[in-house]
């Protein structure tokens, strides 16, 4: 009775409840709860195989049998809704007998190959046979064995994807993998075939299980039917230790668990550490297999210094002495301001903050930026953009939003976990999803309405939404109408190339929605016109009052992008952060601040003579490859710290080996502003050092100790993070006048450059498993376009822009439009950024067939 009272308190007012008795204890749960969940709420464990907290119940394994009074037979508790007055027994003799029979039944065709099975030691079936099963077998016949496709081998393992091995004999047909693939990920490359004894889980005919979430299927498999090739036959699970960490590749800050050996030399795998506020326990493959970048033997081993044009290994002492000498030379020659600092937004808070202090206080320069991959102006205030990208955003609030708009974002590639959230909102809460993109994307498969606007008309579309809302009388426009062009929604729709009715429909949905989530992605943040787009978005937010009934944000892309903004690693940080930093440090450099773009221009003009690039690779990522390369070549002194040798380290005078995220304790701020910690799992490989130690060592060599202890740095960071709140949007409408962009007849096709679904940034190609998924760049185009150009899948295509050309193999996609192509930027073998121009808003290319 006490339980019932206690539970009732936790249920929100107005929710209908039911009261039932489980094992003699009364409990009250919201209507619609299953008996299994009600029992778990009381701390009563009911064993399951096929039940998963994030999937709809199926009841195929029948392990969760319970006895219910007045029901003649045992019931599956995972699929049975709790009813008022139910009396449930979870541990009666009948239930025990039922479970025993089920285990015996499952073991009928399950091979006894636990010694070779990778799941041994963490297998649900092992555990539950031990707990509930019988210890001898009554089975007299030969077990059924699937051998098709595995002739000549004593084991019946089939490789069904680049990283997944299927053993159909071990499968207990719980369908968890098929259901997760379908319900949670929207993929249909795995299915159940045949019936009865010969029923099997198998990939769809002619398909590979290579979707960007395929690693999860292995993790949720209760037996060893699906196993990973990276973990295959490497180590037994009881010989590993786990370290809790977070994903360094996504801005969501997905929680992970790293499995390492006793000596902290090697990571064996990554699994999820379910956090319902962030990831729901699903990991994208880039998170799951990305750990391999930390343990690859190709890592930089020692510092390198340039001697007579050649980079030779050196000790840390030598390298630091040279850094000190060269920085002093530049200082003597030009004064202090001519140093630039570019830093990767995937590094932890302590590194970013101490780097900021090194550049701003020790070196007295104001040139610091964390954005290497965005087009930008040499000097830009970016206030609206910063404000719009640092809104308060909650990933878990996507769940109960009824209107979700994904604007300018290829979610599967950029924010896989948010994509899964949106799918969930759609499947479980029937949210209306609107996908608004310049080309068709995979994530639009859940959308109620997909809108495709003309390339480069983002702000017109947003203006059109404002106008549509005003015209329909859904919002008071005030002076907004005079401040934006065009003047009618129909006109805007015509410019964007979308249906005016659809525009109206979306405006109405956003205006009338109970809770609206508006996500803008990389196509906004990478655009040269992002200031204009952010202003248009701010107008829309204010007009429809979206902040009051939901959330609007331009989502940052990298693990600590949000943190870098909060810690003021921008050339011109917002007023509040700037004041806080000045107060902490007692100084603020006088010099004119420059963005990455400004730094590169001034390097070319030889006005910036030294540069420190921490963990980033401007040559590969900056959207104008030749420009970045030429600029960096002109430098007197370039210091690069990175994990691997890259194009940028090739130009450097001193290269320092940087430790990966798994090798030190670091804190990261995810896109919600949540500070999370990644613990140290490994000893730093070779002679590498964590970023903050490198920064501290440089500062010490120059003669200015940054911090007495790491605590001091942490204190400064926590004060900064606490002091910087979400900026309120200004109480006015912004002028948004879209600029006309002239089209070029010679280069008709729009090029989009981004991440491959299995990669992120410039390092993941070093991870073997991810390389197996996708090992080289490709050009993704529609079949119609390919037909027009006389290209087939796998052909080499010559892609030319005004500034460069590359040759890449063709991949035909069913989801992309006819006038758009996509090339991933993650591969050092293909220099896709050579096609881009930093001053253009849209990249246009022409494509021809390579004739041998």
């Amino acid at each position, binding site marked *: 009775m006490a339980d019932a009272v206690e539970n009732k308190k936790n249920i929100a007012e107005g929710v209908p409840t039911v009261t039932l008795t489980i094992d003699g204890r009364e409990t009250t749960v919201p209507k619609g709860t299953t008996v299994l969940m009600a029992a778990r709420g009381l701390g009563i464990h009911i064993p399951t195989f096929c039940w998963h907290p994030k999937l709809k119940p199926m009841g195929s394994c029948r392990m969760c049998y319970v006895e219910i009074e007045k029901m003649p037979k045992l019931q599956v508790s995972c699929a049975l809704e709790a009813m008022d007055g139910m009396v449930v027994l979870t541990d009666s003799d009948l239930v025990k007998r039922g479970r025993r029979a089920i285990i015996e039944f499952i073991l009928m065709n399950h091979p006894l190959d636990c010694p*070779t099975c990778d799941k041994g030691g963490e297998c649900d079936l092992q555990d539950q046979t031990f707990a509930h099963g019988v210890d001898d077998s009554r089975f007299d016949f030969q077990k059924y064995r699937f051998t098709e496709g595995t002739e000549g081998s004593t084991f019946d393992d089939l490789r069904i994807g680049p990283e997944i091995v299927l053993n159909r004999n071990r499968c207990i047909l719980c369908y968890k993998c098929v259901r997760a693939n379908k319900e949670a990920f929207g993929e249909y490359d795995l299915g159940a075939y045949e019936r009865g004894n010969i029923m099997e889980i198998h990939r769809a005919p002619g398909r590979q299980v290579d979707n960007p979430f395929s690693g999860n299927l292995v993790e949720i498999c209760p037996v060893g039917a699906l196993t990973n090739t990276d973990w295959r036959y490497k180590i037994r699970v009881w010989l590993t230790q786990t370290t809790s960490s977070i994903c360094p590749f996504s801005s969501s800050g997905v929680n992970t668990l790293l499995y390492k050996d006793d000596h902290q030399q090697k990571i064996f795998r990554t699994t999820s550490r379910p956090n319902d506020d962030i990831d729901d326990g699903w990991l994208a493959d880039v998170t799951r297999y990305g750990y391999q970048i930390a343990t690859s033997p190709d890592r930089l081993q020692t510092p390198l210094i340039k001697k007579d044009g050649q980079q030779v290994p050196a000790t840390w002492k030598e390298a630091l002495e040279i850094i000190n000498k060269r920085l002093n030379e530049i200082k003597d020659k030009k004064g202090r301001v001519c140093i630039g600092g570019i830093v990767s937004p995937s590094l932890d808070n302590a590194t970013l903050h101490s780097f900021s202090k090194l550049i701003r206080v020790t070196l007295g320069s104001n040139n610091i930026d964390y954005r290497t991959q965005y087009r930008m102006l040499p000097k830009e205030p970016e206030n609206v953009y910063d404000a719009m990208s640092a809104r308060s955003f909650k990933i878990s609030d996507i769940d109960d939003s009824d209107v979700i708009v994904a604007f300018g974002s290829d979610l599967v590639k950029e924010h896989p976990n948010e994509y899964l959230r949106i799918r969930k909102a759609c499947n479980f809460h029937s949210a209306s999803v609107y996908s608004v993109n310049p080309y068709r994307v995979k994530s639009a498969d859940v959308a109620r309405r997909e809108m495709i606007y003309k390339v480069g008309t983002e702000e017109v579309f947003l203006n059109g939404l404002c106008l549509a809302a005003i015209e329909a009388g859904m919002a008071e426009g005030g002076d907004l109408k005079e401040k934006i062009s065009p003047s009618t929604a129909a006109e805007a729709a015509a410019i964007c190339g979308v249906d005016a009715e659809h525009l109206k429909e979306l405006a109405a949905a956003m205006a009338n929605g109970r809770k609206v989530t508006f996500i803008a992605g990389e196509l906004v943040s990478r655009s040269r016109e992002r200031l204009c787009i952010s202003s248009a978005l701010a107008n829309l937010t204010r007009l429809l009052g979206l902040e009051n009934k939901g959330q609007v944000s331009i989502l940052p892309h990298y693990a600590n992008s949000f943190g870098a903004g909060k810690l003021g690693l921008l050339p011109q940080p917002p007023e509040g952060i700037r004041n806080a930093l000045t107060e902490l440090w007692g100084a603020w450099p006088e010099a004119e601040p420059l963005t990455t773009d400004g730094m590169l221009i001034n390097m070319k003009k030889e006005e910036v003579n030294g540069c420190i690039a921490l963990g980033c690779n401007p040559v590969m990522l900056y959207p104008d490859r030749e420009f970045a390369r030429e600029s960096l070549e002109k430098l007197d002194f370039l210091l690069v710290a990175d994990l691997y040798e890259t194009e940028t380290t090739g130009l450097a005078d001193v290269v320092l080996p940087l430790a990966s995220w798994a090798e030190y304790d670091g804190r990261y701020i995810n896109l919600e502003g949540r500070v999370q910690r990644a613990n140290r799992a490994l000893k730093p490989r070779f002679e590498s050092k964590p970023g903050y130690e490198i920064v501290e060592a440089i500062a010490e060599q120059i003669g200015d100790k940054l911090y007495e202890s790491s605590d001091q740095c942490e204190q400064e960071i926590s004060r900064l993070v606490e002091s910087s709140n979400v900026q309120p949007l200004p109480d006015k409408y912004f002028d948004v006048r879209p600029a006309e962009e002239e089209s070029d007849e010679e280069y008709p096709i729009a090029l989009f450059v981004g991440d491959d679904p299995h990669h992120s940034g410039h390092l993941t190609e070093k991870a073997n498993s991810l390389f197996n998924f996708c090992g080289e760049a490709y050009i993704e185009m529609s079949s119609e376009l390919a037909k027009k150009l006389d290209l087939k899948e796998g052909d080499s295509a010559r892609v030319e822009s005004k500034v460069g050309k590359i040759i890449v193999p063709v991949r035909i996609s069913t989801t992309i439009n006819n006038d758009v192509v996509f090339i991933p930027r993650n591969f050092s073998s293909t220099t896709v950024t050579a096609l881009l121009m930093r001053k253009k808003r849209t990249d246009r290319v022409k494509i021809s067939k390579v004739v041998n």
Partner: protein
Amino acid sequence: MKEILKALVDVIWKMPQGLLVTFKHMFKKPITLDYPKKKEPMAPRFKGLHYLERYEDGSERCVCCGLCAAACPADAVYMEPDENENGERLAKVYEINMLRCIFCGFCEEACPEEAIFLGREYEFATDSREGFIYSKDQLLVPHPRKESAFKRTIRRIRKIYGVEESR
């Protein structure tokens, strides 16, 4: 004076008494063994140096499941698994540190593949510590061995449960 007299008595009377015991043993059967020419008979379940068994067709039985290492109370077993070209699991590294080993035989009891047995070899002294770490090459027998007391036990148990040998 008194002391001198006492010593004299010891020499004349007590010393021959003691020597008598020594002389008696010259005519008794010796307790020690003429090792290595002669050897003590061994108990039928004697546990000596380990060996790794093979199947009749010559392939290795050990799949490197790690249960022997898990069962080992002295933490003497170290192994690293690997995959052969057929996708079969086998041991890449299999080492037993004989200095740590207490020859309890838990490994052979734990082994689900009937791959490791404690043999009857006990003469494996070497002059270095490293020499006592036996690698897989040293442990793996070239041809399957026929008999051991433990194998007989396993056969009897199989008969009781009516289980055929796998493979």
